[in-house]
Protein backbone atom coordinates (compact mmCIF):
# COMPACT_ATOMS: atom_id res chain seq x y z
CA UNK A 1 0.00 0.00 0.00
CA UNK A 2 1.50 3.27 -1.13
CA UNK A 3 1.46 5.22 2.13
CA UNK A 4 3.15 8.27 0.65
CA UNK A 5 0.55 8.58 -2.09
CA UNK A 6 -2.25 8.08 0.40
CA UNK A 7 -0.91 10.84 2.61
CA UNK A 8 -0.42 13.10 -0.42
CA UNK A 9 -3.95 12.37 -1.58
CA UNK A 10 -5.36 13.27 1.82
CA UNK A 11 -3.32 16.49 1.98
CA UNK A 12 -4.34 17.55 -1.51
CA UNK A 13 -7.98 16.81 -0.69
CA UNK A 14 -7.73 18.95 2.41
CA UNK A 15 -5.93 21.76 0.58
CA UNK A 16 -8.59 21.66 -2.11
CA UNK A 17 -11.40 21.94 0.40
CA UNK A 18 -9.52 24.76 2.13
CA UNK A 19 -9.39 26.51 -1.22
CA UNK A 20 -13.17 26.27 -1.58
CA UNK A 21 -13.55 27.46 1.97
CA UNK A 22 -11.33 30.51 1.57
CA UNK A 23 -13.14 31.36 -1.64
CA UNK A 24 -16.19 32.21 0.43
CA UNK A 25 -16.30 35.75 1.74
CA UNK A 26 -17.37 34.72 5.23
CA UNK A 27 -14.39 32.46 5.77
CA UNK A 28 -11.92 34.72 3.94
CA UNK A 29 -12.73 37.49 6.40
CA UNK A 30 -12.54 35.04 9.27
CA UNK A 31 -9.19 33.51 8.37
CA UNK A 32 -7.16 35.83 6.19
CA UNK A 33 -5.13 38.84 7.25
CA UNK A 34 -6.94 42.02 6.12
CA UNK A 35 -3.77 43.26 4.45
CA UNK A 36 -3.97 40.50 1.84
CA UNK A 37 -5.62 41.91 -1.35
CA UNK A 38 -9.20 40.69 -1.68
CA UNK A 39 -8.99 39.88 -5.39
CA UNK A 40 -6.92 36.86 -4.39
CA UNK A 41 -10.06 35.44 -2.85
CA UNK A 42 -11.50 34.78 -6.27
CA UNK A 43 -8.54 32.58 -7.11
CA UNK A 44 -9.11 30.31 -4.14
CA UNK A 45 -12.00 28.25 -5.42
CA UNK A 46 -10.44 27.46 -8.83
CA UNK A 47 -7.17 26.64 -7.10
CA UNK A 48 -9.07 24.40 -4.73
CA UNK A 49 -10.61 22.62 -7.68
CA UNK A 50 -7.20 22.10 -9.22
CA UNK A 51 -5.87 20.62 -6.00
CA UNK A 52 -8.83 18.26 -5.81
CA UNK A 53 -7.98 17.17 -9.34
CA UNK A 54 -4.42 16.44 -8.26
CA UNK A 55 -5.89 14.51 -5.36
CA UNK A 56 -7.56 12.15 -7.84
CA UNK A 57 -4.18 11.61 -9.49
CA UNK A 58 -2.62 10.80 -6.12
CA UNK A 59 -5.54 8.55 -5.32
CA UNK A 60 -4.88 6.58 -8.51
CA UNK A 61 -1.43 5.77 -7.13
CA UNK A 62 -3.04 4.22 -4.08
CA UNK A 63 -5.88 2.24 -5.61
CA UNK A 64 -6.55 0.85 -9.09
CA UNK A 65 -9.23 2.18 -11.40
CA UNK A 66 -12.71 2.78 -10.04
CA UNK A 67 -11.56 2.23 -6.46
CA UNK A 68 -9.46 5.41 -6.75
CA UNK A 69 -12.57 7.46 -7.46
CA UNK A 70 -14.43 5.90 -4.53
CA UNK A 71 -11.45 6.58 -2.29
CA UNK A 72 -11.24 10.15 -3.56
CA UNK A 73 -14.85 10.86 -2.65
CA UNK A 74 -14.20 9.53 0.83
CA UNK A 75 -11.03 11.56 1.22
CA UNK A 76 -12.56 14.88 0.15
CA UNK A 77 -15.59 14.36 2.36
CA UNK A 78 -13.49 13.54 5.40
CA UNK A 79 -10.99 16.30 4.66
CA UNK A 80 -13.85 18.78 4.42
CA UNK A 81 -15.25 17.52 7.68
CA UNK A 82 -11.88 17.83 9.39
CA UNK A 83 -11.63 21.41 8.11
CA UNK A 84 -15.09 22.12 9.45
CA UNK A 85 -14.10 20.95 12.92
CA UNK A 86 -10.82 22.86 12.91
CA UNK A 87 -12.29 26.19 11.87
CA UNK A 88 -14.02 27.12 15.13
CA UNK A 89 -11.43 25.57 17.44
CA UNK A 90 -8.06 26.08 15.72
CA UNK A 91 -8.38 28.43 12.75
CA UNK A 92 -4.66 29.05 12.40
CA UNK A 93 -3.95 25.32 12.31
CA UNK A 94 -6.78 24.91 9.81
CA UNK A 95 -5.05 27.26 7.38
CA UNK A 96 -1.49 26.13 7.94
CA UNK A 97 -2.20 22.40 7.85
CA UNK A 98 -1.50 21.93 4.12
CA UNK A 99 1.88 23.57 4.50
CA UNK A 100 2.80 21.62 7.61
CA UNK A 101 1.53 18.40 6.10
CA UNK A 102 3.41 19.10 2.90
CA UNK A 103 6.66 19.51 4.81
CA UNK A 104 6.09 16.21 6.59
CA UNK A 105 5.32 14.49 3.31
CA UNK A 106 8.40 15.93 1.62
CA UNK A 107 10.59 14.93 4.53
CA UNK A 108 9.23 11.40 4.44
CA UNK A 109 9.59 11.22 0.66
CA UNK A 110 13.21 12.33 0.77
CA UNK A 111 14.31 9.83 3.43
Amino acid at each position, binding site marked *: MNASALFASLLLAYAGMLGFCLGKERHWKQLVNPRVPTWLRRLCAPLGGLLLGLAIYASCQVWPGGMAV*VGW*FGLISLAGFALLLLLPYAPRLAVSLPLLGGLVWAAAALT
Partner: protein
Amino acid sequence: MKGSLTQSMSWLHTWCGLLLGWMLFAIFLTGTLAVFDKEINWWMQPELTDQALSPAAAANVAQRWLAERHPGETNWNISLPTARAPDLAVSVGERRRGGGGSGVIHLDPLSGEKIEPRETIGGNFFFHFHYTLHLPRTLGVWAVGFAAMAMLVALISGIIIHKKIFKEFFTFRPAKGQRSWLDAHNASAVLLLPFHLMITYTGLAIFFLLYMPAAVNALYDGDRQAYFRDGQSGQAAEQAPRGEGRASKAVSAPAAPLRPLSEIVSQAEAHYGQGMIGSLAVSNPGRANAQVTARPVLGNRIELTKGEGMLFDGVSGKLIQAPEPSRTSQLTQRVLAGLHFAQFGGYPMRWLYFICGLISCAMIGTGLVLYAVKQRKQAKANLHFLRVVESLNVAVVAGLLLACITLLWGNRLLPAELAARQDWELRLFFGVWALSWLHGWLRKPLSAWREQLMAAALLAISLPVLDLWSAQGTLDVMRLSLLASVASMGLLLGWTVWKVPTVIAARNARSARLGRPAAGASS
Protein backbone atom coordinates in the same frame (compact mmCIF):
# COMPACT_ATOMS: atom_id res chain seq x y z
CA MET B 1 -45.22 27.38 -5.47
CA LYS B 2 -41.79 27.58 -3.85
CA GLY B 3 -42.84 28.43 -0.34
CA SER B 4 -45.20 25.52 -0.19
CA LEU B 5 -42.58 23.07 -1.43
CA THR B 6 -40.19 24.06 1.30
CA GLN B 7 -42.87 23.73 3.93
CA SER B 8 -44.06 20.34 2.78
CA MET B 9 -40.54 19.02 2.41
CA SER B 10 -39.60 20.44 5.80
CA TRP B 11 -42.53 18.68 7.41
CA LEU B 12 -41.69 15.45 5.58
CA HIS B 13 -38.01 15.68 6.53
CA THR B 14 -38.82 16.18 10.20
CA TRP B 15 -41.29 13.32 10.53
CA CYS B 16 -39.56 10.87 8.26
CA GLY B 17 -36.27 11.61 9.98
CA LEU B 18 -37.64 11.38 13.48
CA LEU B 19 -39.82 8.28 13.20
CA LEU B 20 -37.31 6.28 11.19
CA GLY B 21 -34.22 7.91 12.67
CA TRP B 22 -34.00 5.51 15.58
CA MET B 23 -34.04 2.49 13.29
CA LEU B 24 -31.62 4.18 10.92
CA PHE B 25 -29.15 4.95 13.69
CA ALA B 26 -29.12 1.30 14.72
CA ILE B 27 -28.68 0.24 11.10
CA PHE B 28 -25.85 2.69 10.51
CA LEU B 29 -24.01 1.99 13.76
CA THR B 30 -24.07 -1.78 13.36
CA GLY B 31 -23.22 -1.39 9.70
CA THR B 32 -20.22 0.74 10.57
CA LEU B 33 -19.04 -1.85 13.08
CA ALA B 34 -19.62 -4.57 10.50
CA VAL B 35 -16.91 -3.01 8.33
CA PHE B 36 -14.50 -4.69 10.72
CA ASP B 37 -16.63 -7.78 11.34
CA LYS B 38 -13.84 -10.26 10.64
CA GLU B 39 -11.42 -8.39 12.87
CA ILE B 40 -13.99 -8.35 15.66
CA ASN B 41 -14.63 -12.06 15.09
CA TRP B 42 -10.94 -12.73 15.43
CA TRP B 43 -10.69 -10.74 18.65
CA MET B 44 -13.73 -12.48 20.09
CA GLN B 45 -12.17 -15.93 19.65
CA PRO B 46 -8.80 -15.47 21.33
CA GLU B 47 -8.13 -19.20 21.36
CA LEU B 48 -7.38 -19.03 17.65
CA THR B 49 -3.85 -18.18 16.60
CA ASP B 50 -2.35 -16.99 13.37
CA GLN B 51 0.21 -19.63 12.48
CA ALA B 52 1.25 -17.77 9.33
CA LEU B 53 0.98 -20.92 7.30
CA SER B 54 0.42 -20.57 3.57
CA PRO B 55 -3.12 -21.33 2.41
CA ALA B 56 -1.83 -24.16 0.22
CA ALA B 57 -0.15 -25.89 3.15
CA ALA B 58 -3.20 -25.25 5.33
CA ALA B 59 -5.38 -26.85 2.66
CA ASN B 60 -3.34 -30.05 2.90
CA VAL B 61 -3.64 -30.09 6.69
CA ALA B 62 -7.41 -29.77 6.37
CA GLN B 63 -7.52 -32.44 3.68
CA ARG B 64 -5.62 -34.87 5.89
CA TRP B 65 -7.94 -34.26 8.82
CA LEU B 66 -11.07 -34.61 6.72
CA ALA B 67 -9.80 -37.74 4.99
CA GLU B 68 -9.17 -39.34 8.40
CA ARG B 69 -12.41 -38.33 10.11
CA HIS B 70 -14.96 -37.89 7.31
CA PRO B 71 -13.90 -39.97 4.32
CA GLY B 72 -17.43 -40.93 3.36
CA GLU B 73 -19.00 -37.46 3.20
CA THR B 74 -20.17 -36.09 -0.12
CA ASN B 75 -19.26 -32.51 0.69
CA TRP B 76 -16.31 -30.95 2.43
CA ASN B 77 -15.92 -27.25 2.97
CA ILE B 78 -12.59 -25.70 3.97
CA SER B 79 -12.19 -22.08 5.08
CA LEU B 80 -8.60 -21.18 4.33
CA PRO B 81 -6.55 -18.71 6.39
CA THR B 82 -6.71 -15.22 4.91
CA ALA B 83 -5.32 -11.82 5.88
CA ARG B 84 -8.45 -10.80 7.76
CA ALA B 85 -9.38 -14.23 9.09
CA PRO B 86 -6.17 -16.21 9.70
CA ASP B 87 -7.92 -19.31 11.02
CA LEU B 88 -8.41 -22.65 9.35
CA ALA B 89 -11.85 -24.21 9.59
CA VAL B 90 -13.70 -27.12 8.03
CA SER B 91 -17.24 -28.36 7.82
CA VAL B 92 -18.98 -31.25 6.15
CA GLY B 93 -22.34 -31.70 4.53
CA GLU B 94 -24.41 -28.90 3.05
CA ARG B 95 -22.88 -25.43 3.28
CA ARG B 96 -24.31 -23.43 6.10
CA ARG B 97 -24.42 -19.71 6.76
CA GLY B 98 -22.76 -17.72 9.47
CA GLY B 99 -19.78 -18.44 11.63
CA GLY B 100 -18.94 -19.30 15.20
CA GLY B 101 -21.79 -21.78 15.38
CA SER B 102 -22.00 -25.53 15.41
CA GLY B 103 -20.92 -27.47 12.35
CA VAL B 104 -17.76 -25.46 11.85
CA ILE B 105 -14.63 -27.11 13.20
CA HIS B 106 -11.48 -25.11 13.72
CA LEU B 107 -8.14 -26.76 13.08
CA ASP B 108 -4.67 -25.77 14.19
CA PRO B 109 -2.82 -25.39 10.88
CA LEU B 110 0.46 -26.60 12.38
CA SER B 111 -0.56 -29.62 14.40
CA GLY B 112 -3.68 -30.53 12.44
CA GLU B 113 -5.56 -30.96 15.70
CA LYS B 114 -9.01 -29.67 16.47
CA ILE B 115 -9.24 -26.37 18.40
CA GLU B 116 -12.36 -25.36 20.29
CA PRO B 117 -12.56 -21.60 20.53
CA ARG B 118 -15.33 -20.11 22.64
CA GLU B 119 -18.68 -19.93 20.93
CA THR B 120 -19.50 -16.34 20.20
CA ILE B 121 -21.88 -14.28 18.14
CA GLY B 122 -18.79 -12.37 17.08
CA GLY B 123 -18.54 -9.47 14.68
CA ASN B 124 -21.01 -11.32 12.48
CA PHE B 125 -23.68 -10.27 14.94
CA PHE B 126 -23.24 -6.64 13.93
CA PHE B 127 -23.36 -7.56 10.25
CA HIS B 128 -26.48 -9.65 10.71
CA PHE B 129 -28.17 -7.03 12.89
CA HIS B 130 -27.36 -4.38 10.31
CA TYR B 131 -29.55 -5.86 7.59
CA THR B 132 -32.19 -7.68 9.64
CA LEU B 133 -32.40 -5.76 12.94
CA HIS B 134 -32.34 -9.22 14.53
CA LEU B 135 -35.81 -9.93 13.16
CA PRO B 136 -36.64 -13.08 11.16
CA ARG B 137 -34.75 -12.75 7.90
CA THR B 138 -37.38 -11.69 5.40
CA LEU B 139 -39.19 -9.40 7.81
CA GLY B 140 -35.91 -7.86 8.88
CA VAL B 141 -34.70 -7.29 5.34
CA TRP B 142 -38.00 -5.60 4.49
CA ALA B 143 -37.88 -3.42 7.62
CA VAL B 144 -34.36 -2.28 6.78
CA GLY B 145 -35.38 -1.66 3.17
CA PHE B 146 -38.26 0.48 4.38
CA ALA B 147 -35.86 2.44 6.55
CA ALA B 148 -33.51 2.84 3.60
CA MET B 149 -36.26 4.38 1.47
CA ALA B 150 -37.05 6.71 4.38
CA MET B 151 -33.38 7.66 4.46
CA LEU B 152 -33.50 8.58 0.77
CA VAL B 153 -36.63 10.65 1.38
CA ALA B 154 -34.94 12.39 4.30
CA LEU B 155 -31.78 13.06 2.27
CA ILE B 156 -33.53 14.54 -0.76
CA SER B 157 -36.07 16.52 1.26
CA GLY B 158 -33.17 17.76 3.37
CA ILE B 159 -31.33 18.98 0.27
CA ILE B 160 -34.47 20.71 -1.00
CA ILE B 161 -35.04 22.63 2.23
CA HIS B 162 -31.38 23.54 2.86
CA LYS B 163 -31.43 26.92 1.16
CA LYS B 164 -27.95 27.97 2.15
CA ILE B 165 -26.35 24.67 1.26
CA PHE B 166 -23.33 26.23 -0.42
CA LYS B 167 -23.08 29.28 1.78
CA GLU B 168 -22.99 27.25 4.97
CA PHE B 169 -20.85 24.46 3.56
CA PHE B 170 -18.10 24.90 6.17
CA THR B 171 -20.19 26.49 8.89
CA PHE B 172 -20.06 25.08 12.38
CA ARG B 173 -20.76 27.30 15.36
CA PRO B 174 -20.27 25.22 18.51
CA ALA B 175 -21.62 25.96 21.98
CA LYS B 176 -24.66 27.84 20.74
CA GLY B 177 -27.39 25.34 21.65
CA GLN B 178 -29.93 24.63 18.92
CA ARG B 179 -27.89 26.52 16.30
CA SER B 180 -24.93 24.23 16.94
CA TRP B 181 -27.00 21.07 16.65
CA LEU B 182 -28.40 22.30 13.34
CA ASP B 183 -24.93 23.22 12.07
CA ALA B 184 -23.59 19.81 13.05
CA HIS B 185 -26.52 18.04 11.43
CA ASN B 186 -26.22 20.05 8.22
CA ALA B 187 -22.45 19.77 7.99
CA SER B 188 -22.26 16.03 8.59
CA ALA B 189 -25.02 15.57 6.03
CA VAL B 190 -23.77 17.88 3.28
CA LEU B 191 -20.04 17.16 3.42
CA LEU B 192 -20.69 13.43 3.27
CA LEU B 193 -23.59 13.61 0.84
CA PRO B 194 -21.94 11.40 -1.80
CA PHE B 195 -21.38 8.73 0.84
CA HIS B 196 -24.90 8.90 2.24
CA LEU B 197 -26.58 8.68 -1.15
CA MET B 198 -24.25 5.91 -2.28
CA ILE B 199 -24.47 3.76 0.81
CA THR B 200 -28.25 3.99 1.05
CA TYR B 201 -28.95 3.33 -2.61
CA THR B 202 -26.45 0.48 -2.86
CA GLY B 203 -27.93 -1.10 0.23
CA LEU B 204 -31.25 -1.30 -1.56
CA ALA B 205 -29.52 -2.56 -4.71
CA ILE B 206 -28.31 -5.66 -2.86
CA PHE B 207 -31.80 -7.03 -2.29
CA PHE B 208 -33.26 -5.33 -5.32
CA LEU B 209 -35.26 -8.31 -6.55
CA LEU B 210 -36.71 -8.95 -3.12
CA TYR B 211 -37.83 -5.35 -2.78
CA MET B 212 -39.11 -4.87 -6.33
CA PRO B 213 -39.97 -8.17 -8.01
CA ALA B 214 -42.21 -6.44 -10.56
CA ALA B 215 -39.88 -6.80 -13.53
CA VAL B 216 -39.11 -10.46 -12.84
CA ASN B 217 -42.80 -11.15 -12.36
CA ALA B 218 -43.64 -9.43 -15.62
CA LEU B 219 -40.90 -10.80 -17.85
CA TYR B 220 -40.10 -14.15 -16.22
CA ASP B 221 -43.46 -14.91 -14.61
CA GLY B 222 -41.73 -14.75 -11.25
CA ASP B 223 -39.17 -17.43 -12.09
CA ARG B 224 -36.07 -15.99 -10.46
CA GLN B 225 -33.94 -19.03 -11.26
CA ALA B 226 -34.61 -18.46 -14.96
CA TYR B 227 -33.53 -14.84 -14.56
CA PHE B 228 -30.30 -15.86 -12.83
CA ARG B 229 -29.60 -18.49 -15.46
CA ASP B 230 -30.03 -15.90 -18.21
CA GLY B 231 -27.69 -13.64 -16.28
CA GLN B 232 -24.82 -16.08 -16.38
CA SER B 233 -22.77 -16.19 -19.52
CA GLY B 234 -22.39 -19.35 -21.59
CA GLN B 235 -20.65 -22.19 -19.82
CA ALA B 236 -21.23 -20.74 -16.39
CA ALA B 237 -24.88 -21.62 -16.75
CA GLU B 238 -23.97 -25.28 -16.51
CA GLN B 239 -22.44 -24.78 -13.10
CA ALA B 240 -24.93 -24.57 -10.23
CA PRO B 241 -25.06 -21.02 -8.82
CA ARG B 242 -24.12 -22.07 -5.31
CA GLY B 243 -21.44 -24.50 -6.42
CA GLU B 244 -21.29 -27.49 -4.16
CA GLY B 245 -24.16 -29.49 -2.85
CA ARG B 246 -24.68 -31.27 -6.14
CA ALA B 247 -24.57 -34.37 -4.02
CA SER B 248 -24.54 -37.08 -6.63
CA LYS B 249 -27.35 -39.19 -5.37
CA ALA B 250 -27.33 -42.63 -6.90
CA VAL B 251 -24.24 -42.01 -9.01
CA SER B 252 -21.61 -43.80 -6.94
CA ALA B 253 -18.39 -43.40 -8.85
CA PRO B 254 -15.43 -45.69 -8.24
CA ALA B 255 -12.94 -44.66 -5.60
CA ALA B 256 -10.06 -42.43 -6.77
CA PRO B 257 -7.52 -40.51 -4.70
CA LEU B 258 -8.18 -36.81 -4.27
CA ARG B 259 -5.43 -34.55 -5.57
CA PRO B 260 -3.45 -32.78 -2.83
CA LEU B 261 -5.48 -29.63 -2.33
CA SER B 262 -2.35 -27.49 -2.11
CA GLU B 263 -1.91 -27.96 -5.85
CA ILE B 264 -5.39 -26.70 -6.53
CA VAL B 265 -4.89 -23.74 -4.23
CA SER B 266 -1.66 -22.85 -6.04
CA GLN B 267 -3.40 -23.01 -9.41
CA ALA B 268 -6.24 -20.84 -8.16
CA GLU B 269 -3.78 -18.37 -6.65
CA ALA B 270 -2.20 -17.99 -10.07
CA HIS B 271 -5.50 -16.54 -11.24
CA TYR B 272 -6.72 -14.67 -8.17
CA GLY B 273 -3.46 -13.67 -6.53
CA GLN B 274 -1.51 -14.98 -3.60
CA GLY B 275 -3.41 -15.31 -0.37
CA MET B 276 -6.63 -14.53 -2.20
CA ILE B 277 -8.28 -17.94 -1.93
CA GLY B 278 -10.93 -17.88 0.76
CA SER B 279 -12.35 -21.37 0.68
CA LEU B 280 -12.47 -24.71 -1.03
CA ALA B 281 -15.61 -26.73 -1.54
CA VAL B 282 -14.99 -30.37 -2.35
CA SER B 283 -17.78 -32.54 -3.68
CA ASN B 284 -17.48 -36.32 -3.70
CA PRO B 285 -13.97 -36.47 -2.21
CA GLY B 286 -12.19 -39.75 -2.76
CA ARG B 287 -14.32 -40.63 -5.77
CA ALA B 288 -13.67 -40.42 -9.51
CA ASN B 289 -16.20 -37.63 -9.96
CA ALA B 290 -14.68 -35.43 -7.27
CA GLN B 291 -14.74 -31.69 -7.93
CA VAL B 292 -13.16 -28.80 -6.08
CA THR B 293 -14.41 -25.22 -6.22
CA ALA B 294 -11.88 -22.60 -5.15
CA ARG B 295 -13.56 -19.38 -4.05
CA PRO B 296 -11.72 -16.07 -3.86
CA VAL B 297 -11.49 -13.65 -0.99
CA LEU B 298 -13.34 -10.53 -2.05
CA GLY B 299 -11.20 -7.48 -2.59
CA ASN B 300 -9.51 -7.28 -5.96
CA ARG B 301 -12.30 -5.34 -7.49
CA ILE B 302 -15.40 -3.44 -6.48
CA GLU B 303 -17.73 -5.96 -8.13
CA LEU B 304 -19.17 -8.28 -5.53
CA THR B 305 -18.25 -11.75 -6.70
CA LYS B 306 -19.68 -13.73 -3.83
CA GLY B 307 -20.24 -17.33 -4.77
CA GLU B 308 -18.00 -17.14 -7.78
CA GLY B 309 -15.21 -19.65 -8.04
CA MET B 310 -12.91 -21.80 -10.16
CA LEU B 311 -13.98 -25.37 -10.68
CA PHE B 312 -11.34 -28.10 -10.76
CA ASP B 313 -11.47 -31.82 -11.34
CA GLY B 314 -10.70 -33.40 -7.98
CA VAL B 315 -8.69 -36.33 -9.33
CA SER B 316 -6.63 -34.79 -12.09
CA GLY B 317 -6.45 -31.28 -10.65
CA LYS B 318 -7.29 -29.84 -14.06
CA LEU B 319 -9.29 -26.65 -14.40
CA ILE B 320 -12.81 -27.34 -15.64
CA GLN B 321 -14.40 -23.94 -15.32
CA ALA B 322 -12.92 -20.51 -14.83
CA PRO B 323 -15.06 -17.52 -13.86
CA GLU B 324 -16.20 -15.51 -16.82
CA PRO B 325 -16.51 -11.73 -17.00
CA SER B 326 -20.02 -10.67 -16.06
CA ARG B 327 -22.66 -9.36 -18.38
CA THR B 328 -22.97 -5.56 -18.17
CA SER B 329 -26.28 -5.48 -16.33
CA GLN B 330 -25.13 -8.10 -13.83
CA LEU B 331 -21.81 -6.30 -13.49
CA THR B 332 -23.66 -3.08 -12.70
CA GLN B 333 -25.71 -4.69 -9.95
CA ARG B 334 -22.66 -6.45 -8.53
CA VAL B 335 -20.61 -3.25 -8.53
CA LEU B 336 -23.42 -1.49 -6.70
CA ALA B 337 -23.58 -4.31 -4.17
CA GLY B 338 -19.80 -4.28 -3.93
CA LEU B 339 -19.79 -0.56 -3.15
CA HIS B 340 -21.98 -1.31 -0.18
CA PHE B 341 -20.09 -4.38 1.05
CA ALA B 342 -16.81 -2.48 0.94
CA GLN B 343 -14.60 -5.53 0.63
CA PHE B 344 -12.20 -3.82 -1.78
CA GLY B 345 -9.29 -1.43 -1.49
CA GLY B 346 -7.54 -2.83 1.57
CA TYR B 347 -7.42 -1.32 5.03
CA PRO B 348 -7.22 2.34 3.92
CA MET B 349 -10.55 1.98 2.11
CA ARG B 350 -12.00 0.09 5.03
CA TRP B 351 -11.07 2.88 7.40
CA LEU B 352 -12.56 5.49 5.05
CA TYR B 353 -15.85 3.61 5.07
CA PHE B 354 -15.68 3.22 8.85
CA ILE B 355 -15.09 6.90 9.57
CA CYS B 356 -17.72 7.96 7.04
CA GLY B 357 -20.11 5.53 8.72
CA LEU B 358 -19.45 7.08 12.11
CA ILE B 359 -20.13 10.54 10.74
CA SER B 360 -23.37 9.23 9.21
CA CYS B 361 -24.35 8.04 12.66
CA ALA B 362 -23.50 11.52 13.94
CA MET B 363 -25.74 13.04 11.28
CA ILE B 364 -28.68 10.92 12.34
CA GLY B 365 -27.95 11.41 16.03
CA THR B 366 -27.67 15.19 15.77
CA GLY B 367 -30.92 15.24 13.83
CA LEU B 368 -32.72 13.33 16.57
CA VAL B 369 -31.31 15.57 19.30
CA LEU B 370 -32.10 18.68 17.26
CA TYR B 371 -35.77 17.72 17.20
CA ALA B 372 -35.86 17.30 20.98
CA VAL B 373 -33.93 20.51 21.64
CA LYS B 374 -36.19 22.46 19.31
CA GLN B 375 -39.36 21.03 20.82
CA ARG B 376 -38.21 21.85 24.35
CA LYS B 377 -38.25 25.50 23.43
CA GLN B 378 -41.73 25.43 21.89
CA ALA B 379 -44.54 26.66 24.10
CA LYS B 380 -47.13 24.34 22.58
CA ALA B 381 -45.01 21.17 22.54
CA ASN B 382 -46.60 17.85 23.42
CA LEU B 383 -44.61 17.17 26.57
CA HIS B 384 -45.48 13.53 26.91
CA PHE B 385 -44.45 12.80 23.34
CA LEU B 386 -41.30 14.82 23.89
CA ARG B 387 -40.38 12.66 26.92
CA VAL B 388 -40.78 9.56 24.78
CA VAL B 389 -38.61 11.09 22.07
CA GLU B 390 -35.92 12.14 24.51
CA SER B 391 -35.75 8.74 26.20
CA LEU B 392 -35.67 6.95 22.86
CA ASN B 393 -32.91 9.27 21.68
CA VAL B 394 -30.73 8.34 24.63
CA ALA B 395 -31.57 4.66 24.39
CA VAL B 396 -30.93 4.34 20.68
CA VAL B 397 -27.82 6.49 20.41
CA ALA B 398 -26.02 6.21 23.73
CA GLY B 399 -27.65 2.96 24.77
CA LEU B 400 -26.76 1.08 21.62
CA LEU B 401 -23.17 2.30 21.86
CA LEU B 402 -23.08 1.07 25.42
CA ALA B 403 -24.58 -2.28 24.44
CA CYS B 404 -21.99 -2.78 21.70
CA ILE B 405 -19.02 -2.14 23.95
CA THR B 406 -20.64 -4.30 26.65
CA LEU B 407 -20.76 -7.14 24.13
CA LEU B 408 -17.00 -6.92 23.75
CA TRP B 409 -16.51 -6.82 27.52
CA GLY B 410 -18.88 -9.74 27.93
CA ASN B 411 -16.85 -11.78 25.50
CA ARG B 412 -13.91 -11.73 27.90
CA LEU B 413 -15.96 -12.05 31.09
CA LEU B 414 -18.36 -14.84 30.14
CA PRO B 415 -16.64 -18.21 30.73
CA ALA B 416 -15.41 -19.84 27.55
CA GLU B 417 -17.08 -23.17 28.28
CA LEU B 418 -20.41 -21.67 29.24
CA ALA B 419 -23.30 -23.64 27.79
CA ALA B 420 -25.41 -21.71 25.25
CA ARG B 421 -22.79 -18.99 25.39
CA GLN B 422 -24.13 -17.21 22.35
CA ASP B 423 -27.53 -16.86 23.98
CA TRP B 424 -25.88 -15.32 27.02
CA GLU B 425 -24.04 -12.83 24.85
CA LEU B 426 -27.34 -11.86 23.21
CA ARG B 427 -29.01 -11.51 26.61
CA LEU B 428 -26.21 -9.26 27.76
CA PHE B 429 -26.42 -7.08 24.67
CA PHE B 430 -30.19 -6.66 24.65
CA GLY B 431 -30.38 -6.49 28.43
CA VAL B 432 -28.00 -3.56 28.61
CA TRP B 433 -29.85 -1.89 25.76
CA ALA B 434 -33.20 -2.31 27.52
CA LEU B 435 -31.77 -0.96 30.77
CA SER B 436 -30.45 2.07 28.94
CA TRP B 437 -33.97 2.89 27.79
CA LEU B 438 -35.22 2.60 31.35
CA HIS B 439 -32.37 4.79 32.55
CA GLY B 440 -33.20 7.34 29.84
CA TRP B 441 -36.81 7.38 30.95
CA LEU B 442 -36.00 7.90 34.62
CA ARG B 443 -33.20 10.44 34.37
CA LYS B 444 -33.18 13.96 32.98
CA PRO B 445 -31.99 14.03 29.35
CA LEU B 446 -28.61 15.65 29.89
CA SER B 447 -27.77 13.41 32.84
CA ALA B 448 -28.87 10.28 31.02
CA TRP B 449 -26.75 11.16 28.00
CA ARG B 450 -23.68 11.96 30.04
CA GLU B 451 -23.92 8.91 32.24
CA GLN B 452 -24.47 6.42 29.44
CA LEU B 453 -21.88 7.92 27.12
CA MET B 454 -19.33 8.14 29.92
CA ALA B 455 -20.00 4.51 30.85
CA ALA B 456 -19.44 3.50 27.23
CA ALA B 457 -16.28 5.59 27.04
CA LEU B 458 -14.88 4.08 30.23
CA LEU B 459 -15.59 0.54 29.07
CA ALA B 460 -13.93 1.30 25.74
CA ILE B 461 -10.86 2.88 27.33
CA SER B 462 -10.39 0.00 29.74
CA LEU B 463 -10.93 -2.80 27.23
CA PRO B 464 -7.17 -3.23 26.66
CA VAL B 465 -6.67 -3.47 30.41
CA LEU B 466 -9.34 -6.17 30.62
CA ASP B 467 -7.83 -8.07 27.73
CA LEU B 468 -4.29 -7.98 29.06
CA TRP B 469 -5.38 -8.85 32.57
CA SER B 470 -7.58 -11.78 31.55
CA ALA B 471 -4.82 -13.03 29.21
CA GLN B 472 -7.11 -15.37 27.35
CA GLY B 473 -5.21 -15.75 24.16
CA THR B 474 -2.38 -14.51 22.00
CA LEU B 475 -2.35 -10.78 21.32
CA ASP B 476 -1.33 -10.40 17.71
CA VAL B 477 -1.27 -7.29 15.52
CA MET B 478 -4.91 -7.52 14.58
CA ARG B 479 -6.12 -7.84 18.16
CA LEU B 480 -3.84 -5.09 19.38
CA SER B 481 -5.08 -2.84 16.58
CA LEU B 482 -8.64 -3.46 17.64
CA LEU B 483 -7.83 -2.64 21.25
CA ALA B 484 -5.97 0.52 20.26
CA SER B 485 -8.84 1.68 18.04
CA VAL B 486 -11.51 0.99 20.64
CA ALA B 487 -9.51 2.69 23.37
CA SER B 488 -8.80 5.74 21.19
CA MET B 489 -12.45 6.14 20.32
CA GLY B 490 -13.28 5.75 23.98
CA LEU B 491 -10.86 8.52 24.85
CA LEU B 492 -12.37 10.81 22.25
CA LEU B 493 -15.88 10.08 23.48
CA GLY B 494 -14.89 10.50 27.10
CA TRP B 495 -13.16 13.79 26.41
CA THR B 496 -16.24 15.11 24.61
CA VAL B 497 -18.58 14.08 27.42
CA TRP B 498 -16.21 15.65 29.95
CA LYS B 499 -16.12 18.98 28.12
CA VAL B 500 -19.89 19.33 27.59
CA PRO B 501 -20.85 20.59 31.10
CA THR B 502 -18.10 23.23 31.03
CA VAL B 503 -19.31 24.40 27.65
CA ILE B 504 -22.92 24.58 28.79
CA ALA B 505 -21.94 26.33 32.03
CA ALA B 506 -19.92 28.89 30.10
CA ARG B 507 -22.80 29.55 27.75
CA ASN B 508 -25.25 29.89 30.63
CA ALA B 509 -22.89 32.30 32.38
CA ARG B 510 -22.50 34.34 29.20
CA SER B 511 -26.23 34.52 28.69
CA ALA B 512 -26.85 35.35 32.33
CA ARG B 513 -24.40 38.24 32.06
CA LEU B 514 -26.27 39.51 29.03
CA GLY B 515 -29.59 39.04 30.85
CA ARG B 516 -30.87 36.59 28.26
CA PRO B 517 -32.06 33.02 28.77
CA ALA B 518 -29.62 30.59 27.25
CA ALA B 519 -30.69 28.91 24.04
CA GLY B 520 -31.70 25.27 24.42
CA ALA B 521 -30.84 25.45 28.09
CA SER B 522 -32.86 22.52 29.21
CA SER B 523 -31.07 20.03 26.96
